[in-house]
């Protein structure tokens, strides 16, 4: 149906979005790339000349580098694992008929609307604080020692906070997917005497595959750049320094723009590798 004419029109219609995004990507990227080959220290007069690959070498050989890559992967992987597993279970539960579905759905969706800064502050102070936090009160009520979440299990604590924010998102997508499942097929399997686990494994899970990939893709995009939750809770202490946070520390805390930019370029490359990897899977699933 696409004529020559409509192709031209289509190109024209895509142009604004493509040009804008290209500019948004290229201009800062080229500037960052330039900075990354310079000694650029704003507190010492700014641009201090070209230094070749020195910034890259320094960034990669710093003792904080590999741990930060590892923390990033654990954080993203942890949140994904929790939200997908709990999301599937929750979606299965909410798919059952029960009284007050509308209200429960409102309750479950709510964390998604909460600002990351706010949720980090609330969790950190009112729940995880080892003296006045609710968890501490709870532990004490059962005669246990209060647990200091943010310094004893810092990465886990942040994963919990972030997972709480993203669980509604995963649940909703998965719930919609489950609702579209052909219930006759399930009932037929039930009649045939297929056990619950088998029904789940052979019918429900394959049906959800597509929804799960979407959840993983969208969440990874947002999780790679997690910042507020770390800034508010641990400020990168105790091994919670992700790549994003490490770059923040170089650029803003140390005001070493050259070094931070080298890290930024690395993060861009890493993000694109992840992107290509994800796109391969999702692209297949999305038959765009």
């Amino acid at each position, binding site marked *: 149906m696409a004529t020559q004419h409509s*192709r031209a029109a*289509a190109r024209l*219609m*895509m142009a*604004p*979005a*493509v040009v*804008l*995004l290209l500019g*948004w990507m290229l*201009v*800062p990227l080229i*500037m*960052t790339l330039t900075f990354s080959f310079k000694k650029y220290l704003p507190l010492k007069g700014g641009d201090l000349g070209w230094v070749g690959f020195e910034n890259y070498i320094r960034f990669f050989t710093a003792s904080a580098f590999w741990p930060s890559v590892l923390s990033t992967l654990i954080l993203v992987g942890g949140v994904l694992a929790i939200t997908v597993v709990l999301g599937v279970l929750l979606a299965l*539960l909410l798919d*059952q*008929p*029960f009284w*007050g579905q509308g*209200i*429960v*759905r409102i309750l*479950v*969706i709510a964390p998604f*609307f*909460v*600002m*990351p*800064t*706010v949720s980090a502050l*609330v969790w950190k102070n*009112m*729940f995880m604080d080892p003296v*006045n936090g609710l968890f501490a*009160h709870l532990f004490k009520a059962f005669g246990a020692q209060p647990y200091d979440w943010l310094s004893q299990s810092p990465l886990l604590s942040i994963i919990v906070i972030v997972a*709480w924010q993203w669980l509604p*998102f995963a649940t*909703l*997508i998965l*719930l*919609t997917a489950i609702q*579209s499942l052909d*219930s006759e097929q399930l*009932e037929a399997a039930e009649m045939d005497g297929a056990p619950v686990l088998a029904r789940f494994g052979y019918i429900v899970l394959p049906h959800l595959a597509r929804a799960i*990939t*979407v959840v993983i893709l*969208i969440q990874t995009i947002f999780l790679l750049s997690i*910042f*507020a939750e770390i800034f508010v809770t641990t400020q990168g202490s105790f091994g919670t320094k992700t790549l994003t946070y490490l770059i*923040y520390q170089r*650029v*803003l805390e140390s005001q070493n723009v050259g070094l*931070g930019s080298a890290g*930024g370029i690395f*993060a*861009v490359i890493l*993000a694109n590798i992840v992107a290509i990897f994800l*796109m391969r899977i999702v692209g297949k699933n*999305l038959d*765009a």
Partner: protein
Amino acid sequence: MARRVSTRRKAITTLAAWSVGFLIFFPILWTVLTSFKTEAQAIADPPLFLGFDWTLENYAVVQERSDYLRFLWNSVIIAGGSTLLGTMVAIPAAWAMAFVPGKKTKDILLWMLSTKMLPAVGVLYPIYLIFIQLGLLDSRIGLVVVLMLCNLPIIVWMLYTYFKEIPGEILEAARMDGATLREEILYVLTPMAVPGIASTILLNIILAWNEAFWTLNLTAAKAAPLTAFIASYSSPEGLFYAKLSAASTLAIAPILILGWFSQKQLVRGLTFGAVK
């Protein structure tokens, strides 16, 4: 369609679902409750759930310290403006991708999404310098543009998935009747896509409302939205749980209410074409 289940099973499910829902919602509930306590009651052990003297004092203190409405207004303008602008740019693009797909369409779409993965911290300095040059620091316009660009890929993608579900024959029929491209989009496509567009807008308002990196780093006083409002309560001297709760409640309430009222559209919007 409705599956018939025993009342007993339904009762058990109800109990389980409500417990889980309550558990997930609890942190928000607790924040709202705490905002009505005094500072001393806020840290009381054992914790007080309802049996405390409800007070509005914290809200008064917060309002006295920072003019809530001004921050709120900035948030509305920035979140609304960036979403609206983004949608206007995205609709034609998504239309073209959905109805005149070329060999490169898929690649372009995926490339757009990949721009979302650029770490904001890495490009803060360049953006800051550009903003200084253009005089955009601490301006709503500047933030509207930046957040629009941040969310544009998501908007395009969401709209694309909706448009794809609209059968092409209808458009073709319209074309047969002599509708121009503009008319086709405006009078045929858009009405059919209204639910999709609405949920796209909703989701992006939420994303823009909660964006805390650019909004904090590119504003000072004039354009500062609620994310900056909350940044002045994160750890004041002395006891602050109640005041923090009041400020938090104020910061999240508008979007929470909007989200609840429109949750049906939103749920539909969140599927990203994952569900057929």
